[in-house]
């Protein structure tokens, strides 16, 4: 057990140290699988539709419905509503809601009667239900566009900002050398430099010497302890020595004195200071640092 654990820990440490340099390719937003909201129980799945019926319905939809309701059912150019958020189509079980509408029950509301056989109308309903079954968590449409490039800034302005605000800690010939090659996706690059941490999604960033928080604890008698900050709250502070030995010290108000050094604090202090143009400009500059 123990050797395995140590082995796992060293792998973690290695990958953490290398994380800033080589982010895993899976981190690019485009490649991430669609997120399901936590706690969603897919128990009430829509029953599977007959594939032949769906295929037929899709063809008929393309002929008779697409112009108004859109190729992706999210509404079309001639003003037909989005069928993916239509309460009527969402509630449809076996055509009982959709088919009458196709046949003209909502003409007063502007939906004309569409000439097609009842069988074809049922096929269209089956196709609509099959697309509804692909809606993502929290109502995300199945047919989102490819996100546009986030590069909207001015590289020259970004360079000036970088030289004014960032060069006391960072250098494009040093720690950031080739940053745009190492992090090729501009969105990931922006998220990384703004926070100072490599991260993907909401998970914690891996620790590196550059982002390790340390603390110095000075007791009432003047004794000093220094090390990596493991945890802190109002009641205790825990630090680790260089060899990993942890020490937990009780806190009572201002005693002992605790000084926390967070290398990333400088990044956080800039969040309220940046304008969005500053951020866009610096990113436009950093993507040129190949």
């Amino acid at each position, binding site marked *: 057990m123990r050797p395995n654990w140590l082995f796992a820990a060293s792998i973690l440490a290695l990958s953490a140290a290398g994380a800033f340099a080589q982010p895993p390719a899976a981190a690019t937003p485009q490649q991430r699988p669609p997120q399901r909201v936590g706690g969603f129980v897919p128990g009430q799945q829509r029953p599977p539709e007959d594939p032949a019926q769906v295929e037929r319905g899709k063809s008929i939809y393309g002929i008779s419905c697409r112009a108004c309701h859109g190729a992706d059912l999210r509404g079309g150019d001639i003003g037909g509503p989005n069928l993916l*958020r239509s*309460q009527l189509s969402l509630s449809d079980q076996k055509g009982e809601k959709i088919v009458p509408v196709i046949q003209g029950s909502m003409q007063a509301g502007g939906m004309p009667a569409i000439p097609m056989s009842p069988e074809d109308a049922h096929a269209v309903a089956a196709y609509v239900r099959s697309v509804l079954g692909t809606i993502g968590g929290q109502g995300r449409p199945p047919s989102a566009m490819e996100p546009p490039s986030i590069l909207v800034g001015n590289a020259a302005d970004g360079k000036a900002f970088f030289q004014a605000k960032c060069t006391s800690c960072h250098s494009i010939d040093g720690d950031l050398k080739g940053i745009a090659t190492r992090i090729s996706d501009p969105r990931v690059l922006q998220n990384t430099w703004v926070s100072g941490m490599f991260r993907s999604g909401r998970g914690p960033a891996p620790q590196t010497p550059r982002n390790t928080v340390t603390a110095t604890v000075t007791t009432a008698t003047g004794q000093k302890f220094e090390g990596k900050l493991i945890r802190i709250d109002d*009641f205790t502070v825990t630090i680790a020595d260089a060899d990993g030995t942890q020490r937990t010290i009780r806190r009572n108000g201002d005693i002992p004195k605790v000084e926390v050094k967070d290398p990333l604090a400088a990044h*956080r202090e800039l969040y309220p200071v940046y304008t969005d143009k500053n951020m*866009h400009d610096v990113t436009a500059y950093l993507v040129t640092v190949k």
Partner: protein
Amino acid sequence: MIKNIAYAVLAAGCAFAQIRPVPPEELLKPLGANWPTYNGDYSGRRYSSLKAINTQTVKNLSLAWSIKMTPGMGQAGGPGRGGGGRGGFGGSSVPLIVGGEGPGDINAGGGTIKASILAVDGILYFTMPDNAWAVDARDGRELWHYYWKTRGGTHIGNRGMAIWKDRLYMETPDNYLVCLEAKTGKEIWHKTIADLDQGYFSTPAPIVVGDKVLVGTGNDIDSPGFLLCFHAETGELLWKHYTVPMQKGDPGLDTWASLDAARHGGAQTWIPGAYDPETKLYIIGTGNPTPAYMTGKRGEGDNLFTCSLVAINVDTGKMAWYFQTSPHDTHDYDSAQTPVLVDGVINGKPRKLVLTAARNGYFFTLDRITGERLVTTKYGQYTNWAKGFNKFGGPEHDPVKDPTVGGAIVSPTSDGTVNWQPPAYSPDTGLLYVPEGNGFSIFYLTDVDPRGSMGLGGKEEVPLGTAGNYLSAIDYKTGKVVWRHKWYGNGGSGGLLTTAGGLLFAGDGMGNFVAHDARTGKPVWHTRIGNISSAPSTFLIDGQQYITVATGDTLWAFVLN
């Protein structure tokens, strides 16, 4: 097995002899020995008049009991479970009552207690999604367990039950209102709240007012929000109030680009409101507009009555007034926070007030009779999504801080300075206590389709970390933050409690349950039981004051020793 059941009946007989119907008038009284509704009383203050546990005695507060709950049918009726869900405590098996319209094989996974814990005459009633329990408050013994076989829906949380006479009411994720017999947990009836196929899922605690049960729901896929009113006895639907315009001529329609946009506009009723018996107004916060992160086809208007406090007459179901806290929201800053009713003094004049510290970083004091705005302040230290105020005194969103293609740095995150967690107000200090999270995110617009996205889609939010999380105390007269107590974690989860003992209870997000001095915020007692998942509450039995709170699947009770 048979023997166990016999024991259960015997044990149950003893406990159930204490059951007394709770007349609805009892909910009108200030909060004391019992905790008979979501916020304890109708005011939303979460202020208890109990003071045996106070700033002097709290140092002696210690564990009375704890119980770990097992949701679902898994261990139902097994020997050894009865003594508090852990085995080895003696006692006998617990009656399991099963209801529901689902197939019974859908496993919703591990449950978390996010419910308010009702306390009535020595019995506690609380929930997880699909599960309700009665527990003996003296020793934490489970008395009965009701399990609802779900048809599906988002199982994100359940805020607890309501009580009327000898009946309890619970909402389910697949949108049923279930009425249970308080004595036995047996189902009396269940009624449909909303259509699961339309993406609704129900999390709120129902609120009993007289013989009415007020029921909210939720939805993330562009369906209209509404509040329902059922008859407590029969389950008959008395009225349904939509929170967005649904017909031509409905108020607020001119703030939407079209009737179709309004009818898909959201404004869900996620969290129970406060009730003013004098005006018969039920005041409740509404959710975000949809699509949430862009204008889409909503139009440039305010999109009423999303992100608003709305006051609804409980007899008629008609809206008396509204105040919009986030006009034309684009960050999912819903206004589903618990409003707090306070009788106070503004500019030397006695006023009947309602307070809300909204998710968007702004605090408001309103007149609760008319909805007139009296105070607006920004309490979120770095809140930056708005520029100035509109003519009604609501913050005006700054379009450059909407989600953009290049990214916008915004505080707070979409989780807000505060989320659903109920605040607390002490009339002794005149302070409203609220969690204040000053996180930043980059908001990217990822779907630039001119039709707009749907639900919460079409954006990517990258959290950057926090510039400071606090337990904050706001003076309702000025809207100023009087003190901030720094939290090292995401404190305030579950919600807050304050008492006449001069105490304010909160989780600190670092695994501690903490009692603060309500005047200064200074911690005066703590215990490390894990992060808090439900708002703490307090009650009295046998002359002894209890504090109860949940961490995940475990309920804890503390007394003075």
